[in-house]
């Protein structure tokens, strides 16, 4: 469960300061599927960074379960990201020199597992996204949809509490988009994790339990 209270995030540049999030107070119960929409530059990615323990707010408090993310140091945040948070990006963000299997394994590297366990869990995750046949392929040898499946496998292989996705279908065509959305929804249902998806796409957003709209750093329920 997420608890955000009076969260403000501003970026101070050389000339002016941009306030990407303005006094956001929000609760997201465990296991909910939330879609975040809004115009470009509205603050969607910034909110996701707060939820994903990638950055600390300028002011306010972010709590995930028992941890107050806004107060933790870099090392503790990295540990929480390693154990509790799965991330899916618009650009897939796979390591180009590593095979599909090795890419999934990178998510398990910080957990201190044995080589065999890491490999077997990673291949199970790839099987679950129907890529059991492509484990040895490099990202460049896979289609966009397949690459995103590898990225999803990498996000879920650690059995996280929450799965965060920033425009996961933004780089995909319509058919692949539906495929990926079905995959994410299936995982959400099966693993009962909290799924938060940032999207421009209303068709995608409509599938969520709850929809939030962010404009100029202010969050509205739809």
């Amino acid at each position, binding site marked *: 469960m997420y608890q955000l209270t009076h969260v403000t995030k501003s970026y101070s540049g050389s000339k002016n300061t941009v306030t990407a999030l303005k006094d956001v107070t929000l609760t997201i119960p465990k296991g909910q599927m939330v879609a975040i929409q809004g115009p470009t530059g509205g603050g969607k990615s910034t909110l996701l960074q707060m939820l994903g323990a990638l950055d600390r707010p300028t002011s306010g408090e972010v709590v995930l379960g028992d941890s107050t993310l806004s107060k933790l140091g870099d090392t503790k945040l990295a540990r929480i990201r*390693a*154990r509790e948070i799965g991330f899916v990006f618009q650009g897939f963000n796979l390591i180009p020199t590593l095979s599909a299997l090795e890419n999934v394994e990178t998510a398990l590297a910080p957990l201190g597992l044995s080589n065999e366990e890491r490999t077997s869990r990673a291949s199970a995750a790839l099987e679950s996204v129907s890529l059991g046949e492509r484990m040895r392929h490099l990202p460049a040898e896979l289609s966009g949809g397949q690459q995103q499946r590898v990225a999803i496998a990498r996000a879920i292989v650690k059995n996280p509490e929450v799965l965060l996705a920033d425009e996961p279908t933004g780089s995909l065509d319509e058919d692949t988009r539906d495929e990926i959305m079905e995959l994410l929804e299936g995982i959400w249902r099966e693993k009962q994790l909290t799924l938060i998806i940032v999207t421009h796409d209303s068709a995608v957003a409509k599938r969520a339990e709850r929809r939030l709209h962010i404009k100029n750093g202010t969050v509205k329920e739809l």
Partner: protein
Amino acid sequence: MFITYLRRELVNRRKQTIIIAVGMALAIALVIIVNSVAAGVKDAQTAVLGSVYGVGTDITISKAAAAPGANGTAGPGQRFDFGPGAGSTAAGTTAVASSRLTAGRSTATFDAASLGTVTGEAGVSAAAGVLSLNNTTFDGKLPDVNRTEQGSDRAQTGDGSAPTDGPGGTGGSSFNINSFTVLGLDPSESAVGPLSSVTLTDGRTLASDDTGTDVAVLDSAYATTAGLSVGGTIDIGGTSFQIVGLVESSSGDATTASNVYIPLDVAQNLSGESGKISSIYVQATSSDDIATLKTSLEAALPDNTVSTQSDLASSVSGSLSTASTLVGNLGTWLSIIVLAAAFLIAILFTISGVTRRTREFGTLKAIGWSNRRIVGQIAGESVVQGLLGGIAGVAIGLVGVLVVNLVAPTLTASASGRVGGGFAGRGIEAAGGPGAAGGRFGQAAHAAATSDVVLNAPVTVSVILIAVALALAGGLLAGAVGGWRASRLRPAEALRSVA
């Protein structure tokens, strides 16, 4: 994971790996070559010094020559007096010959009792006193004085050394001044001193029972030049010496410290230097406290000059000295510059690699990789690149050293000795043939112990280890800088939309 990722990165980003490794390899190869050539030059210097001062000589003690005329201790000048009726006259010319043995002009002599002082010092394992002398021989033909006076007055305008114009084609003069070095040494002392480092090529060396006898051992190179051999005799200071042995330097083609070696007491008597020596050769008990020993010897003998092997090394001149300077200065600076360039290349390429992989490292951070893990990964890549370069560099360096050793350049060295100082061989030649204008004076060869040393560059395990350590250090440095850059990346970089 670490190994897999490392291997994949090095293989897939081959260009960067190759550039960093090649840069490092060239630098390491240069370090090895410069180092081993420097060691070779140093060995050559030691060999030359060994041939002059004797192997095992740690310290030599001498006394600076007093200014000529000061309290009258300086030896007599090169002066030959011939009284009326000297020599034999035939066909209008008079043949004369004279030989004189004097103390070497570059050093002063001192009381042989100093040897006892030296032997009494703690830390001295052996010491030997020697007397360094010069034998100068004058022989030649002078025009018949009476006949010259009867001739043209023009003969008297000459400065007395050689008539500028002989009268009517007769009465020219021709004379030679030959000089060679003579070293008087204790025949019973064989552990230390100039004769401890030589190889006997013929006859025998000096022994204890040679004390007081007129026997001589010759440098074989000098003997060849002078046409002398074992069984023959040599005239030293007007006395005929039996030649009992020939010696040559143990180190390559080097000549030995002196042309002629005779028993010390004979040398002292003949040169009028009774109870005097000109140098003491000292062997220390331990090579570690030579500096301490030098200090205590200086205190015990305040009037003398005490020199260690390293002090003496600076007296080696010639192309060996040039090589030494070249390797010492140019080589060292070149290695430092190339090494710095290689380090810089490694650092710049690592930084640019980290910048190019911003999203990759941001993503790894976003999925939970700690800064430490990422820094370790980058440092690992750089260290392996550096080590690959280091190994290649060691290989290239060894080939380079092999080439140097195959070419085996010959260096000439002369150790202008405080000990052996004096004229060697050629001497002065003056010849005024009938009707010839003036006398011709050959250049006096003032070089004691000129040696040709073949450069042999040795490679030691420690040089290789140092080279590999340098490559490792370069990799670590590049990795540290690159890792520091990566550790400052925000994990949120991963969310940046694709460019």
